[in-house]
């Protein structure tokens, strides 16, 4: 009930805001059911509800991006009968989490040209080679672009399986998602979607981007930050292990020795 009221309030806000906004930009206003996801004991993943209102026609695309970092993609090869890691490409600018949901099939809403320009969709992310066989700075979005597949250089072609493996492996871990749906309420003004964070979600500051797309053009957008953090005992243990690692190590050893000694006492009595 409170959530419905919040949506209604937002809608009113959105409508008044739309009235004040410049005529060109389509109004979209959205909010999250929570801005902070706390990882505590018993955290097994969580859902965050995104809801909002859009003025005018257009499809809604919601993109969630985790903090970016470097990632090694390794390929195994058979050497003397054993599978070992042979080739590595290190990519930079890899979001630790990426999900895209749309109110209609993504390929229809976002044409390739727009996807390349805006980086919507895992294949069009600004992921670049940092170290490895292909030249530094080469982008996965270029290697995976079907229209350029015929005239690319060999080094870029060699990247293709690595870029595909990155997306495939991330998807298997549940950290790259592309099946999400944005649903409109009757009247096509109010919309909602559920962002699903798995248990292994990386911590950090996320950005939630809401786009309104019409005729292959972005006509309105809004960005929200979302923080995923460890809290409680877990956060303190993690901080302690990293800040006072020597002390933490000593405590770990002392606890284990005490536990072993205690167990020994119990054994002896029986």
């Amino acid at each position, binding site marked *: 009930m409170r959530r419905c009221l919040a949506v209604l309030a937002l809608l009113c806000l959105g409508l008044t805001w739309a009235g004040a906004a410049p005529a060109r930009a389509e109004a979209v206003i959205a909010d999250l059911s929570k801005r902070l996801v706390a*990882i*505590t*004991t*018993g*955290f*097994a993943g969580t859902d965050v509800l995104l809801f909002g209102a859009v003025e005018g026609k257009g499809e809604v695309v919601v993109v969630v991006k985790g903090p970016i*970092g*470097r*990632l*090694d*993609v*390794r*390929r*195994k090869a058979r050497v003397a*009968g*054993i*599978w*070992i*890691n042979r080739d*590595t490409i*290190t*990519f930079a600018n890899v979001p630790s989490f990426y999900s895209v949901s749309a109110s209609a099939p993504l390929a229809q809403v976002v044409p390739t040209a727009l996807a390349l320009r805006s980086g919507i969709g895992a294949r069009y992310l600004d992921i670049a080679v*940092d170290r490895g066989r292909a030249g530094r700075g080469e982008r996965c979005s270029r290697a995976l672009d079907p229209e350029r597949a015929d005239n690319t250089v060999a080094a870029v072609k060699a990247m293709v*399986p*690595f870029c595909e*493996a*990155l997306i*495939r*492996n*991330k998807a*298997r871990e549940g950290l790259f998602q592309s099946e999400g749906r944005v649903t409109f309420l009757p009247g096509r003004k109010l919309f909602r979607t559920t962002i699903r964070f798995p*248990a*292994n979600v990386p911590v950090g500051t996320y950005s939630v981007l809401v786009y309104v797309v019409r005729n292959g053009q972005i006509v309105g957008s809004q960005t929200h930050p979302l923080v995923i953090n*460890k809290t409680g*005992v*877990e*956060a303190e*243990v*993690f901080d302690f*292990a*990293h800040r006072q*690692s*020597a002390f*933490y*190590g*000593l*405590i*770990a*050893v002392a*606890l*284990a*020795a005490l*536990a*072993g*000694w205690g*167990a*020994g006492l119990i*054994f*002896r009595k*029986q």
Partner: protein
Amino acid sequence: MQIYLPIAEMSVDVFLLLGLGGLVGFLSGLFGVGGGFLMTPLLIFIGVPPPVAVGTEANQIVASSVSGMIAHWRRQGVDFKMGAVLLSGGLIGSTGGVFLFEYLRDIGQIDLVISLAYVFFLGIVGLLMLLESVRSAVRRRGGKRRKLHHHTWVHGLPFKMRFRRSKLYISAFLPLAVGAAVGVLAAIMGVGGGFLMVPAMIYLIGMPTAVVIGTSLFQITFVTAYTTFLQATNNQTVDIFLALLLLLGGVIGAQFGSRAGARLRGEELRGLLAIMVLLVCGKLLFDLIATPDDLFSLATGRIGGHR
């Protein structure tokens, strides 16, 4: 019931961890081995990152070897002088091992080296134990006695020391080398190394069986404590929550295991342990040879990167 492990950064079912601890504890109580060689692959199998599995397992072994060592100490089953020499080697070995671990992880070959090391050592030790238990079962029927120990080239090495409790006069290099080799394995494989050290002490050094287990536990306690500390300070890969849960299951499991063990004969126990060691070895070898589902894997870039 799920619990979030702060260092492994994943949530796991509490009862799965207690069960794993209990199962491995039962086997270690049954066979009188540490069980690290089983626990580390199992932890990796349920999704714990290999560095955390190795670091945390070292921490858990501290606990199980402390209680074992105290029990053997009371029975005069620890040769402290031999233990000290083994330990000196162990500290050198595990220091080198932790740095080797870091290097192998950076070049992306740590999983391969861990698997190869397991296959190699478990294969050799398993086969030796199996042969020995079959031979001693045959000998028991024949009723022939074995010589106390054989003289080989290792007894000609310099720096001889006298180890009274072990009734030995041998070169200090031999236990030093054995200790160092076990120390490297403790750091890289996340094991106490008992499965390697005990046969080495019996067959290579020639120690009497009565002091072998206690002395090896003495060395393992201190080497794993030192390894835990190094892994905690260098790599931050020791998860106290995980270690304590495994420990709890392990203590209970070991009790049942040692009761069950009392009903079996020595050769039978060693024969069973040998078969189990060979099974783990075979599984790891199969994983190395079988074509993986996905030829590609991901790893967080570490060199120069931020975490």
